[in-house]
């Protein structure tokens, strides 16, 4: 029983990171009906930028803020250069274009930051906390990760429910025509959505880098998890991305603990398959059905 609880605790940090990555996919899906497969590429790229800033300034905090800004900028650039020229209503074209962006970003990163996997300096203590006479499988860094994730989720919730910009974003996502007729500048709102998703993904990248390493392909597995989570959560639900994200983190930790960490992606895909059979519209979706 203690082992079980330990495995659960140990999965919280990675669950939060997967949730953030899924959140960035959901943010774009909601407003444009496109799954942005380039998202992990963007996060990888901005994490390399963060690493450069960290090496240069020695400050993890400045690196995090830099990644946030770079993520927003990169999101806007990709939307302008790649997604806007793709014909409207050509959803499959747009999705394939995002794959192209992913490959281009990975190739570019390999050229700009050569030398394979690099370590990202550990900003906080990542050793298990000692408390009440034992070592717990959760570190100060895990708390930082969970705290930043919670803050971001709170901020996004306030943005969507309390501000005019958030209302514009929701209206533009649900019914762009009515939004335009109401005076919402829909294309600007969509661009802002790409910036926002880029920033959220960038944070996920900076948070995961110290516990893995950073290379052009090191976040690929994160894409598998985040995509799984976003689909199971219903693709348009922020709550879905967060709760299923954390849940998946726990499942991965349990599977890795009781068997082997190599089995974790297989279990995640099994969860995805199960979801598509039993509840194809997703657990938290607004929509009644979705064809698979």
């Amino acid at each position, binding site marked *: 029983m203690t082992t079980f609880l330990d495995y659960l605790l140990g999965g919280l940090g990675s669950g939060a990171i997967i949730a953030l990555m899924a959140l960035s996919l959901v943010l774009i899906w909601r407003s444009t009906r496109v799954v942005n497969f380039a998202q992990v590429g963007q996060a990888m790229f901005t994490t390399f930028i963060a690493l450069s800033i960290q090496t240069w300034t020695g400050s993890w905090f400045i690196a995090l803020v830099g990644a946030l800004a770079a993520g927003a900028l990169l999101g806007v650039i990709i939307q302008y250069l790649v997604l806007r020229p793709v014909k409207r209503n050509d959803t499959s074209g747009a999705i394939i274009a995002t794959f192209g962006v992913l490959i281009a970003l990975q190739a570019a990163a390999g050229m700009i930051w050569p030398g394979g996997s690099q370590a990202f300096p550990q900003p906080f203590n990542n050793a298990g906390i000692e408390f009440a006479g034992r070592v717990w499988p959760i570190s100060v860094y895990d708390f930082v990760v969970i705290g930043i994730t919670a803050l971001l989720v709170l901020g996004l919730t306030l943005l969507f429910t309390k501000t*005019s910009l958030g*209302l*514009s974003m*929701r*209206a533009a996502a*649900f*019914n762009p*025509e*009515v*939004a*335009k*007729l*109401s*005076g*919402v*500048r*829909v294309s600007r709102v969509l661009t802002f959505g790409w910036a926002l998703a880029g920033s959220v993904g960038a944070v996920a990248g900076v948070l995961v880098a110290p516990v893995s390493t950073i290379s052009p392909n090191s976040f690929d597995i994160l894409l598998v998890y985040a995509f799984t989570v976003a689909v199971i959560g219903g693709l348009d639900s922020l709550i879905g991305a967060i709760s299923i994200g954390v849940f998946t983190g726990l499942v991965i930790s349990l599977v890795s603990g009781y068997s082997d960490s190599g089995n974790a992606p297989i279990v995640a895909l099994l969860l995805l398959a199960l979801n598509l059979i039993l509840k194809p519209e997703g657990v938290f979706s*607004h929509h009644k059905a979705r064809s698979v």
Partner: protein
Amino acid sequence: MLTITELSVNYGAVQALSNVSIEVPKGEVTAVIGANGAGKSTLMRALSGLVKPGSGTATVGGVTITGRKPEDIVRLGVALVPEGRSTIPELTVEENLRLGGLWRDKAARNATQVQVFDLFPVLAERRSMRADTLSGGERQQLAIGRALMSEPRVLLLDEPSLGLAPLIVTQILELVSRLATESNLAVLLVEQNAVTALRVATTGVVLNLGKVVMVGSGSEIASDEQLRNAYLGY
């Protein structure tokens, strides 16, 4: 207030609207009637910027609106209530209303919202409920309320009677005509339901296959039997 001059719209090779000229004065309801496919909705979409007209102009108080984007046209004081109760079901009643005037400053927006709630008390009662819990008539009121939130000088109403019970249609149209008089609003009403539309309209315009075939007072058109038989089918 709204002057439409020789407006034409083409969908590919099909001319949906050809050389339509209509004058919509303020303080009155002007009704455009005609059968299905006469070009009524096309006219509304062209005026609100959702489709680009091929030629011709529309001006509001002297300012040209044709060729502009929908989000700019609404800022110039032209608000469309599209066909089919165009509320956003996932948003609450109050969010749907707020959406209608988001770009305006908060004080002005709130003042208008109070007026809309006076006009449609049921919306005030249901303000925090999702729009998809409303009845058809209530949703039409919400759609009109959303358009009013932009404090328009010209209100475009596309088939407000669609799918509503006759009694509710009468109530809504009477309210619209009162609104036109009291707020000095220019209302352009597009309707397939000619009888009801002509009852509240000062001027009627008959549209057939994209062309204006007759302009006259509401009662004049309603009593023209030949015209009714030829174009309106009742």
